[in-house]
């Protein structure tokens, strides 16, 4: 391994020897529960207190997080560079609309239940990812990165041409509402309230996305820490060793590509729900499913720490969250006193920030935020304050 390998592999699978002294006496366990509590608060409370505009920023972050988790499994864990994520997002979004909408003039629709359409969208995206196996199984490293770029162009072309599915670039097609066991997401039907707060569209979408993200993250964590994750890392680190130890390398490569595509497909469904619209891009360099987005996902996983699920989420907070947060906070679209066509918008400012973050991570902290977090945790556990906080019985 060269010195510059980027990875944020978790110290995989720390077995729970540490249960011996009960829940509270073990600093690591306590720390883990503390983190879980904070996460639960971050996820559950904002719909009660925040304006819908803030909730929409959070929803968008969760879309990016789901996509980035899928990409970090592929690129970080299995070592396959991919720029095709936006394509699979588009496939997922389009499949969701096609399966979940009623047939309309000029637009094909199957009118299936929306939950079936959601799962169908993930499966179709994953199946297309698997169909890419002749390339993803054979082509390696940077070659694969460029090969996947092809799919972005294919998606752009199909989206523009195949209007009966995509709705076309002019008007697109509306997103089916997600009906989760009788509770609609995009409409207040039935009306619900939670702790005195009416659950309207943005609150509902928030909780739905949080649920999807939770499932996506739990699956990824479970896989990373056991058999599939070990196979991915083995394939990434040394294919001949992996193969000699019984790993069917081409198969694992194809599988992880399919899994990653499934994540992108789910993110695509979420995107369509967020915009309440599926709209194919007009160009390959600007738009919802463009190369720029592919690069944004790479930025997320790199900043978060390649291979780290939590890092992918953190990366999305920065890359997908910052523009929206800045726009709301400054109440406009111009930063640093600029204005007009040359203004530094929150989107441009964010690009500067994550561009710089990528460079800093590669040069100075190859493990990304995940490595920083681990170091922080280790330091906290060592210091006086940390040990007091973390083990109430003292040492």
């Amino acid at each position, binding site marked *: 391994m060269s010195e510059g390998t980027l990875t944020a*592999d978790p110290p*995989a699978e720390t077995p729970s020897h540490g249960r011996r002294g009960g829940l509270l006496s073990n600093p690591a366990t306590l720390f883990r529960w503390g983190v879980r509590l904070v996460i639960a608060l971050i996820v559950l409370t904002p719909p009660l207190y925040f304006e819908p505009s803030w909730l929409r920023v959070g929803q968008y972050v969760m879309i990016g997080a789901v996509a980035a988790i899928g990409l970090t499994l592929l690129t970080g864990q299995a070592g396959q560079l991919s720029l095709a994520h936006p394509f699979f997002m588009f496939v997922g979004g389009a499949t969701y609309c096609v399966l979940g909408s009623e047939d309309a003039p000029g637009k094909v629709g199957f009118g299936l239940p929306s939950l079936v359409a959601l799962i169908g969208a993930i499966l179709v995206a994953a199946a297309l990812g698997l169909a890419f196996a002749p390339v993803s199984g054979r082509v390696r490293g940077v070659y694969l990165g460029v090969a996947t770029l092809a799919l972005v162009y294919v998606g752009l072309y199909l989206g523009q041409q195949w209007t009966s599915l995509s709705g076309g670039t002019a008007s697109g097609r509306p997103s089916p509402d997600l009906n989760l066991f009788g509770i609609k997401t995009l409409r207040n039907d039935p009306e619900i309230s939670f702790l005195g707060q009416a659950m309207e569209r943005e609150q509902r979408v928030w909780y739905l996305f949080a649920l999807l993200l939770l499932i996506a993250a*739990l699956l990824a964590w479970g*896989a990373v820490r*056991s058999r599939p994750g070990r196979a991915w890392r083995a394939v990434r*680190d*040394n294919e001949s060793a992996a193969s000699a*130890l019984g*790993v069917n390398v081409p198969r694992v490569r194809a599988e992880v590509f399919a899994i990653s595509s499934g994540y992108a497909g789910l993110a695509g469904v979420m995107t369509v729900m967020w915009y309440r619209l599926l709209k194919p891009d007009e160009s390959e360099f600007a738009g919802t499913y463009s190369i720029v987005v592919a690069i944004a996902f790479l930025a997320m996983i790199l900043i978060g720490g390649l291979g780290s699920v939590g890092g992918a989420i953190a990366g999305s907070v920065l890359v997908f969250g910052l523009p929206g947060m800045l726009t709301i906070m400054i109440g406009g679209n111009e930063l640093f006193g600029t204005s007009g066509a040359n203004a530094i918008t929150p989107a441009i400012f964010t690009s500067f920030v994550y561009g710089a973050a990528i460079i800093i991570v590669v040069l100075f902290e190859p493990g990304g935020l995940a490595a920083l977090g681990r170091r922080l945790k280790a330091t906290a556990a060592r210091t006086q304050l940390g040990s007091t906080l973390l083990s109430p019985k003292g040492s």
Partner: protein
Amino acid sequence: MSPAATPALQVDDLALSFGGVKALDKVSFGVAPGNIHALIGPNGAGKSTCFNVICGVYRADRGAVRLGGNDVTGMHPHQLAGKGLGRSFQNLALSMHSTVLDNVMLARHCRTRGGFMAAGARWPSMMSEQAKHTARAVEICEFLGIERLLHAPVGGLSYGDAKRVDIARALATEPEVLLLDEPAAGMNAGETAEVAELIKVVRDALEISILLVEHDMTLVMGVADRITVLDFGKVVADGTPAEVRNDPEVIRAYLGEQE
């Protein structure tokens, strides 16, 4: 060793050419059950080629490889792991960022089941299977004296410890035949002696057969029950260390190399 016993590993009449150069030519030998067998020869004699054919990395033009009586000729490396062939690597080929246990557990891949969904959902049958196999992996690490390093990343280990991880990983495939690729490469005399001791202990404790491809003569002469000597892709001698040591062909092959 009874002459009737099926060899643990048998190669028959292997031939392989690279662009007209015969890397292997009518190579045949057998590794008797429980034996430590060494494959030696000067540089470029075809040792590594032969090793790679046995492992399934190269496909021979002709000939057969049999593992405990089963024909495994032309099988892929990952299939061989399930058939009882374990191997170590000269350059270790470990995942440097992963822990020792993680590296060793990889070898249980072909003995376990469960894909992304089962693992992701922490399916109970998969978790219990994993726990069982983790226990076995820990046991193997204890056997090799690296149990205190289970959760350490491999990248920080000494070379000797990393070599043990490599061997632990090979053993974790539960092989009938263990192939060791130049286990003493890059080691000093003390470390080489340690490896020699380890090889014997492994054979005695696990009752497996070991095929050793090695440069280091002291190691080979010290541990091998039987030695096959290759030169220019052909078997030039096959016998006990004592027989091979005095074989004029072998002496010529080695002296020839030094000119």
